[in-house]
């Protein structure tokens, strides 16, 4: 026999909603505007939503928030075992979604919903203002990039990962990086015909180029044209001499409106940075000798902190 759920006292109603499984909560939110608001008010805690693009559908991976007891739990989570965490996937299409839960796939329909409406609905019920993680790989067709940009106005982190063709990776970066607070570009697609400087000139907040299999080749000119606030490249091929020239050019003050705030370069492990070579001919002062941090100052008063430790160098512009 049915019961009149919405007639329950609000506190009990919220408690009942808090006791529900994640998939059931999403189903409840789709019953009506009232139930949507009830779910929203329950402030359900989830792990950051992880969105992936497969063909013409967007998959949302959602799991319950996992309370970590200690550092060992974090290790378990990373390894993906020993953690009992409800996890569901939703494939978003126009007018319907496929929900994967408990080893079954169900289809839920809302004829009036387009893909963007599903996204707005799901973000809204979990009180998220944007998609926390958007992942692009070879499963995303190039011709679908424009649609993604239209239906996903903003995301916290854009991840471009293997397997991914050079064309998809390039297009994804140039099209979608501006909608992301942070970009993780986890594939080295650059060569003589396709150099990294085009990517570095974009006006972006934070970009991490990461490829441990194929080091990025970086030249002094690449660093000088960078327009990215927080840039990190690992791992990278660049000589100590070029790092020294970069610091000297900065000293000359020819880049008055240099935008970057922090550049972190991680060099190949066997190639430790020679700090004498990097700071050769430059007047510097120790910030903290134990942290291998040095400060250089130029005529207009601007400062640059250089931290050199083994195979990592940070340039922090103040």
């Amino acid at each position, binding site marked *: *026999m*049915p*019961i*009149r*759920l*919405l*007639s*329950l*006292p609000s*506190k*009990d109603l919220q*408690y*009942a*909603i*808090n*006791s*529900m*499984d994640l*998939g*059931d909560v999403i*189903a*409840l939110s*789709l*019953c*009506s*505007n*009232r*139930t949507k608001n009830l779910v929203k008010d329950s402030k359900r805690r989830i792990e950051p939503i992880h969105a992936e693009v497969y063909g013409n559908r967007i998959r949302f991976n959602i799991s319950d928030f996992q309370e970590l007891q200690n550092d060992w739990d974090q290790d378990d989570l990373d390894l993906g075992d020993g953690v009992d965490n409800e996890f569901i996937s939703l494939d978003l299409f126009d007018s319907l979604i496929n929900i994967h*839960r*408990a080893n079954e796939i*169900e289809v*839920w329909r809302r004829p009036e919903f387009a893909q963007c409406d599903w996204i707005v609905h799901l973000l809204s019920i979990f009180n998220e203002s944007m998609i926390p993680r958007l992942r692009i790989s070879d499963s995303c067709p190039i011709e679908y990039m424009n649609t993604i940009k239209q239906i996903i106005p903003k995301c916290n982190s854009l991840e471009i990962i293997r397997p991914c063709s050079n064309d998809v990776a390039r297009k994804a970066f140039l099209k979608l990086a501006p909608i992301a607070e942070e970009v993780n570009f986890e594939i080295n697609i650059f060569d003589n015909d396709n150099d990294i400087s085009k990517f570095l000139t974009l006006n972006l907040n934070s970009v991490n180029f990461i490829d441990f299999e194929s080091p990025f080749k970086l030249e002094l000119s690449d660093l000088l044209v960078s327009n990215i606030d927080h840039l990190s490249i690992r791992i990278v091929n660049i000589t100590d001499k070029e790092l020294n020239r970069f610091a000297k050019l900065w000293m000359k003050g020819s880049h008055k409106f240099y935008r970057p705030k922090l550049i972190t370069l991680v060099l190949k492990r066997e190639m430790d940075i020679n700090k004498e070579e990097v700071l050769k001919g430059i007047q510097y002062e120790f910030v903290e000798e134990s942290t291998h941090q040095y400060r250089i100052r130029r005529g207009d008063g601007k400062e640059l902190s250089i931290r050199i430790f083994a195979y990592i160098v940070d340039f922090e512009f103040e």
Partner: protein
Amino acid sequence: MSSTEQGTSSAAPAEPTTAPESAAAPEVPESFYYVHGKDKVVHKVSAGALQHSALIHGMISNLGYTEEQAKANPFPFENIDGDILQMVVDWCNQHKGKPTPPEDTNLPKQKEKLFDLVLAVNYLEIKELLTYCCKQVAMMVKGKSPEEIREIWMIPTDAEDEAAEKEAKKRAGKEAAGETAAAAGDAK
């Protein structure tokens, strides 16, 4: 008025006795109170069992009734069906003086009564039982689709909600107009 004797077993008092000397101490006789629901059937319940209900506990804590006075003045809960009150009393007796387990297998299984039970338990402020009931409510829709949930929980559609809201506004308007007319009539 008919009467049932609930919770009359000579169970130990709610307070566990751990120290050896307390065993030798004279036993304090357990006090009993009486409650009845809409059906007027009176249930005799020990003070220990009633401690689960914050509402009743608050009511009796300063009464100092004798057995006769308690019998003569059962607490009336006219808003609770007799069978629901029976369920609540049974649960309180079963869990008298015991820590409540994380999962309660003794919870009534009748889904049709669950809604009334939640309301009663909420009114009587029995926190642990309310927790179990709400979990039971949540379990009713485990693995269900939005359409199935709407049916099980009788959730109105947006159109029905809008129609109900319009109706409520219309009614409120009419009532306000009626009151104004009545006030004008009184003034004359």
